[in-house]
């Protein structure tokens, strides 16, 4: 199996790609990486901010694509390349020829894939404008998935066969490849999408399959937060997490983490992950060198069938002493969960609340366990 140890897979989230200047800024940051690293990064690109939502809206309700066209062409003009504008116009014309609205999941995936495609073209040209040697790879040709449209799972073996030769060859030649996140295709060539946030999953898959040194999921927040700041204004950045803690947090709906982001790192190969801004953020690795502040890292939730599963995530949560302390703290807080559970070997303690109780539950749990509980938990 291929290993590209000195390579970083960089995923650019849609939140940081909103207009021409932001593409050039991202390109400048990637150029720094190419100058400092022994081999170029592989860049996974999300759709421009708001575009996936807009495409979904048009799929569901119909309407024009003028806003999408305008956003992309304006960005192309800012980047300053007439050929880029022509390329975008060609692809947007193809998008416009697809009859919408549509309930067809296969057609919907084909429509949604244009968001990432157009964004990739913008970033590729922005990188060229920064004198970076760059070429684009078509995710539909190399990322192979099952046939579950709208939430496909990557077929790692089929993807490796197609990806390894292409990507390795490019980075060894000093060429930075760009590729769409979120998008793949079935073995018969039908376009699929990996579910919202799927670009993270694309990035970790590529890193695991190619043995990259690390994955950097670049976003507009400084890192994974100890709670959603919408509920907890005092939420702080989690500086370090273990891989299984991060996977558990994703499973329980931690904002900004696709549920399958960490699956390739658990089944293929472990690779260090950084989630946050360009200068760093939350570092996720197989094991921490030391136990970070508090065994509990964050609180998050996932709603299912009218119930909210509010999870405290952290290694060691299953230790009896710790569990007892947490239950005492909750008892003293006045919170009344409808139940709680833990699963052996998993770094979480989960409380059940009504969905309308979530804001209060998260606020209180964060306060009593992560803030006041402090070093004792």
């Amino acid at each position, binding site marked *: 199996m291929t290993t590209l140890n000195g390579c970083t897979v960089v995923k650019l989230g849609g939140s940081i790609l909103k207009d021409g200047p932001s593409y050039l800024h991202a390109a400048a940051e990637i150029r720094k990486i190419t100058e400092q690293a022994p081999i170029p990064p592989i860049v996974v690109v999300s759709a421009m901010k708001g575009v996936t939502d807009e495409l979904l809206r048009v799929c569901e309700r119909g309407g024009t694509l003028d806003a999408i066209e305008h956003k992309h062409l304006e960005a192309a003009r800012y980047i300053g390349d007439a050929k880029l504008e022509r*390329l975008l116009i*060609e692809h947007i014309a193809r998008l416009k020829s*697809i009859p919408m609205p549509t309930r067809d999941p296969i057609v919907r995936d084909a429509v949604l894939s244009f968001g990432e495609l157009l964004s990739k073209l913008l970033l*590729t040209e922005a990188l060229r404008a920064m004198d970076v040697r760059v*070429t684009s790879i078509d995710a539909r040709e190399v990322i192979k998935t099952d046939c579950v449209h709208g939430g496909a799972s990557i077929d790692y073996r089929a993807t490796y066969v197609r990806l390894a030769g292409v990507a390795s060859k490019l980075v060894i030649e000093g*060429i930075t490849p760009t590729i769409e996140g979120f998008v793949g295709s079935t073995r018969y060539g039908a376009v699929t999408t990996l579910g919202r946030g799927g670009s993270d999953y694309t990035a970790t898959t590529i890193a695991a399959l190619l043995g990259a040194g690390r994955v950097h999921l670049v976003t507009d927040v400084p890192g994974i937060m100890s709670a959603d700041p919408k509920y907890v204004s005092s939420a702080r950045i989690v500086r370090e997490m273990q891989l299984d803690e991060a996977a558990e947090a994703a499973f329980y709906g931690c904002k900004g983490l696709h549920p399958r982001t960490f699956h390739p790192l658990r089944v293929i190969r472990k690779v260090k992950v950084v989630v946050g801004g360009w200068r760093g953020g939350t570092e996720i690795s197989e094991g921490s060198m030391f136990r970070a502040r508090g065994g509990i890292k964050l609180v998050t939730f996932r709603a299912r069938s009218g119930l909210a599963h509010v999870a405290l995530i952290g290694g060691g949560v299953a230790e009896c002493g710790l569990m007892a302390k947490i239950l005492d703290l909750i008892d003293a807080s006045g919170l009344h969960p409808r139940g709680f559970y833990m699963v052996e070997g998993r770094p979480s303690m989960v409380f059940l609340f009504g969905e309308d109780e979530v804001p209060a539950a998260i606020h209180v749990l964060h306060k009593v366990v992560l803030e006041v509980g402090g070093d004792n938990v």
Partner: protein
Amino acid sequence: MARIVSVVIAGFGSVGRSLARLIALKSSRIEERYGLRICVIGILDSKGAAVNTSGFSPYDLLRLSETPRSAVSSYSPCGMPGASLSDVYERATPDIHVEVTPSDYQNGEPGVSHILYAINNRVNVVSASKGPFTLRYKEIIEAASRRGVALKFKATVMAGTPLIDVLSGLKGYEIYYVEGILNATTNFILSEMQERLTSYEDALKRAQALGIAETDPTMDVKGLDAAAKLTIISNVIGCPVEFHQIERDDVSRITVSDIYSALRAGRAIKYIARLDLEDRRGSVKLREVPRSSVLGSTNGTLNAVRIVSDVNEIVMVGSGGGGMETAHALLDDIITVAGENRP
């Protein structure tokens, strides 16, 4: 030390671009395995050309494959706006001419002119373009033979499955007939109609949305593409039929009711191209076949062919000619020609 083989690519749509990328990405593997360095020295599209007499680097080829349609001549500093094939050859005559222009079934142009020009300049030819071999097969073969140049065209029919190679190899066989599903677009449409019990119009819209059918699907649904392939097959076997004499059905006349009646009888409606060698007749017809048969169970964008002879029946099922598959078939032919034409 690798032997250098220079190539000009005429036509730079999705197949031409896929070929450029393939050569860029597989150059070291090809050099290692075959001792061959493929040097693309010119690329021609409908509005001009890009020429580099030393050969485009892999990075240049990747960049060229990302230019907008009909814009290779804007690739600085190698661009030649408005250039024709003769302008390209004046700057750099290749060892191999690769023809990948779109097929025209009225006159075979520009493919016919390009191929004959290459042959007259003693340049070997590899082609994915069907028009020239559909309409002027004998003339092209004879011209190549007189000039002593190689001519390969397996990318013209079922590029993703080596049908032409197989047919060319059946030298001692007495072939009775060849029949099959040779067009991916119409097979997809009929499969959709069958699987979803949907109308032809809805199935076509879906095919177009997924990029499987063209905006104007006439060449596919009126059987022109399949008939062209059948004509080429007939020439390869040595029993040529005239393209314009092949009977063709129109897929757009199929209704959901037809599909349903067939399904109830355990049958599928397929668009079958058939060449009968005894009668020397070709047809592209909508036929009911058992769903359990090879042709009846070949769905989506797959192609399938049965070759029935005095020896046995050979069945081939596989992909037709997507961009990458066709590019691989072209690359195979380039390597073969380069190997057969050592100085």
